[in-house]
């Protein structure tokens, strides 16, 4: 069975933010919610590398484990989804998430948060019909149901961001590193999946 993953090749990522706006475009993500982002390490210095990051759809996802209302679900493709019907906006998943994926619309009083929003691996939401208008409004696109990958990876300018079956993208990355002779590794994989891509 396929286990989907994201892999960002930091030696290819140029911080062009295509993944970010592709995500906004595909899912109509509002201002202030950033399901995906690009972080640049050592900005402006030797060793500068950029990494595109969103929900990594972890194995044994910390968000799911700490959710007080158990609103997380893992699909057959190992995509971690959550139910906005159940979410109470407590914010715990953000503290637990190693990747800063959960986002909350600022609502009403004090710092209280609306229902959590995060990358769905373009898989819509856990309830309702695939590809329905209701699903789109609540969770965004459901490309996976159509056999397509997340738009962020499809539109990546340098093919740095890979999506798909974890073993296949690991293989692609491995071949790249062998061919070119360098590679700073699959960022976040050790944390998310307890494994790295060995070359």
């Amino acid at each position, binding site marked *: 069975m396929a286990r989907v993953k994201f892999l960002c090749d930091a030696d290819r990522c140029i911080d062009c933010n295509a993944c970010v706006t592709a995500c906004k475009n595909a899912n109509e993500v509002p201002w202030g919610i950033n399901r995906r982002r690009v972080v640049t390490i050592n900005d402006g210095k030797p060793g500068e590398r950029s990494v595109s990051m969103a929900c990594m759809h972890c194995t044994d996802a910390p968000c799911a484990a700490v959710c007080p209302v158990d609103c997380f679900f893992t699909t057959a493709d190992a995509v971690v989804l959550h139910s906005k019907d159940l979410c109470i906006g407590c914010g715990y998943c953000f503290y637990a998430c190693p990747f800063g994926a959960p986002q909350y619309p600022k609502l009403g009083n004090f710092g209280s948060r609306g229902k959590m929003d995060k990358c769905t691996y373009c898989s819509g939401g856990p309830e309702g019909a695939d590809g329905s208008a209701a699903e789109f*409004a609540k969770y965004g696109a459901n490309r996976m149901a159509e056999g397509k990958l997340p738009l962020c990876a499809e539109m990546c*300018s340098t093919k740095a961001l890979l999506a798909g079956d974890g073993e296949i993208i690991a293989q692609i990355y491995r071949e790249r590193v062998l061919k070119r002779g360098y590679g700073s590794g699959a960022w976040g994989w050790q944390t998310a999946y307890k494994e790295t891509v060995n070359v």
Partner: protein
Amino acid sequence: MLIKRRDSAVQSSRLQSTTLHSALGELSSGVLDRRAFLRRAGFTAGAVGLAGLPLGSVKRAEAAAIDPAIPVKRVKSVCTHCSVGCSVIAEVQNGVWVRQEAAFESPINRGSHCAKGASVRELVKGSRRLRSPMKLVNGEWQKLTWDTALEEISAKLLKIREQSGPESVFWLGSAKFSNEGAYLYRKMAAFWGTNTADHQARICHSTTVAGVANTWGYGAMTNSYNDIRNAKTMVIMGGNPAEAHPVSLQHILSGKELNRANLVVIDPRFTRTAAHATDYIRIRPGSDIPTIYGMLWHIFENKWEDTQFIAQRVYGMDDVRKEVAKWTPEEVERVTGVPGEQLKRVAYMMTHEKPATLIWCMGATQKTVGTANVRAYCILLLATGNVGAPGTGANIFRGHCNVQGATDAGLDVTSLPFYYGLAESAWRHWARVWEVDYDYLLSRFDSKKMMETSGIPTTRWFDGVLADQKSIDQRNPLKAMMVFGHGGNTVTRMPEMVKGLEALDLLVVADPHPTTFAVVSERKDNTYLLPICTQFETSGSRTASNRSIQWADQVVEPIWESKNDQEVMFRLAEKLGFAEKMFKNIKIEGKVPVIEDITREINRGAWSTGYPGQSPERLKAHMANQERFDIVTLKARGGEVDGETYGLPWPCWGTPEMKHPGSHILYNTNLHVKDGGGTFRARFGLERNGQTLLAEGSYSKGSEIQDGYPEITYAMLKKLGWEGELSEAEMAVITRVGGGKPDAVSWAIDLSGGLQRVAMDHGLVPYGNAKARANAFNLPDPVPVHREPIYTARPELVAKYPTRPDERQFRQANIGFTVQKRAVDLNIAQKFPIVLTSGRLVEYEGGGEETRSNPWLAELQQDMFVEINPNDAKARGIQNGQMVWVTGAESNSKARVKAYVTERVGPGVAFMPFHFAGWFQGEDQRSRYPKGADPYVLGESVNVLTTYGYDPVTQMQETKCTLCQIATVLA
């Protein structure tokens, strides 16, 4: 349970194949096909309403349910941002663009986009677009109808024409036009009676076009983005494609990885591109020529040059040697700051790890020595034999999506369409194409002299407004400005520009957005805004940087009350009284010109640049067969486009029926001219001072003349005994064109294409076979020499390397020398010790009005900033993120921006992006925009601070090296 049931077996098999397609294609160079997936896809996702959210608030855009029963239309267009030319797939339902998909079949972008391309769908949601025609009445914006607006505008134009003459109107066009739009705009200026019609190329690559064309014939990228994959050494000097042309990095990084190629970045800034280099070299801003000569010094010293290439295909290299000899490693290091060893390393790579390509952008061109810079770059390529073959070449990354096409189409104050120039012969050629009397065109101008004199360029228009009658070489100063698709914050010396705006009798801005022009001045009346749609709301062809021409289909109808460029031009021409003549061969439907008719008119006239073969039908066939084109060679396999090069990159010789495949790589002698081969162009005569200017022993494959030869004329065919191969019909046209004297008819003005056909049948390139010129004797500096920037941080170098003397250029004085001398005398560098340079951000483009109005992009860059080195920041007590005043060396200019403390810039250098506007010297001008049409993000424009300085050949402005001071904002 709430979890959805998924068919895991089906899902996983789909995933595997999708993954393989989207990512494995990377490793091979195969063509991708994701059509199967697209075909299988059922589209039921929602469309989206308008999101007019204020900054900082969060509101879900309303999703309108779409009836799954309504079919989805898949439309292919081309990204409207940079010149890479990424295909865009739009999925349209009920006339609404509901989804954007990755265009995997495009050989240029293979599904990829940058932040801008991945967000273009928002442009036709148009949350901050201008919705209707507006005019300023006593400082307030008022709505009016299209007809009233055009009626009032044309009445005012005609009045100005009557009182001041046609030369008093400045027609500023756009690189955002389609080829057809650009061509039409230039044609409109001709029918109006002025050559003062310009566009962004002036401030972009005008110096490249001048420098490159004067070296080897054509002013364009010699190879392609895709071909860079073949290079073993890539040198990027004065460019930051990771931010300016992100999708090009797909090809660059693939080349770097697959060939283990060298990627050298030479730049004052450690850019995002430099972060991926294998060698980064930091130079002092404005020291490009010494850097190039520093490399050439090692090349000549070690005899690494390509002697055979130089002997056969280069004129005047010895003159270069004399200049280069002055640039010892010590002097180079003194001027550029780069140790000799580093440049020697690059020189070695360029000569030993070949093929090598040189990539440049605004860092080379936007200088007072822009043309000379570009010439030096070309000379380096010539000396190392890196032109005219795969993996080599001058890979000039153009800026806007159609800046190459708009330049070709002649939106240029120095030429009629397609580089024919302004001489009488050129006017007569276009009069024949347009089927109007030459005398009619002449009657539209003030005089024959004005008809053949270059106009006032966009960098100097406000000087042309503020000039008095005596200081300008035309009847009257400029009185009116028509702006189609051009930002107002793109030219230097903005405080002066604002004065120019205020002095205009009429200002018309036709654009999807109000632009900076609409808000930056204190104008109260006689100012009109016309809402123009984007290229997604019309169709037409656009030329990417690599000369590939792509046809874009209309995605949706123009939104709000906007209209497309060609319709507005037609309506305006109608009111101005020359529509009938101007649109003689162009069918009008309603009020909209048929776009394909304009393309065909271009085909009929654009022989000189090789645009006659790209008929609308052929271009559309390429778009429909994209998946057939190879990602490296751009050559198609199979189908109706078999053997052709993607987008029929010009030159595509002869009539469409001749089926020339287009030229992937210019000047490539390894191919037959009929397969896209070529030679350096014979354009500057046959010999000079006894030395031949024609090639010696070098010729394109299959040439029956195995040596250099001049351009093809009927007389030459006769001499070669080939004139009998012309058909009767062709001969008739040649005779008509020649007016009874067919001998003088050349390949460029023969409307039948017969001369080109017969030449190619014999393997000859229509434009001849000459040497490239290391010495371009018609330029101010025939061999490039280093000249310090007007405002230099190293005034002690000015005595040895002064700028050129003052001179009259383009109808006005260029007093660069005086300004430089004054700056040195007044010791400006002491008061303004930091070198200010400017450039791009990936999220925004050009003046930024459109991209800053796109919330998906605007969210990512919300503040104008200045990059400052930690040392300089520390010395001034500046913290990262703090507001600072940046002050400029002229006009007491100042800008209030955020400090971004970073080692990206070296000590003594500051960088500012050029996309911001809407703040002016500390004042927030948001309230001046028409309601609802203000961009989400506003900020100070760097060009408030930039200063005097113009290239002598093109009047390119200086945006890369001026001086500034930075201080904290005292609360």
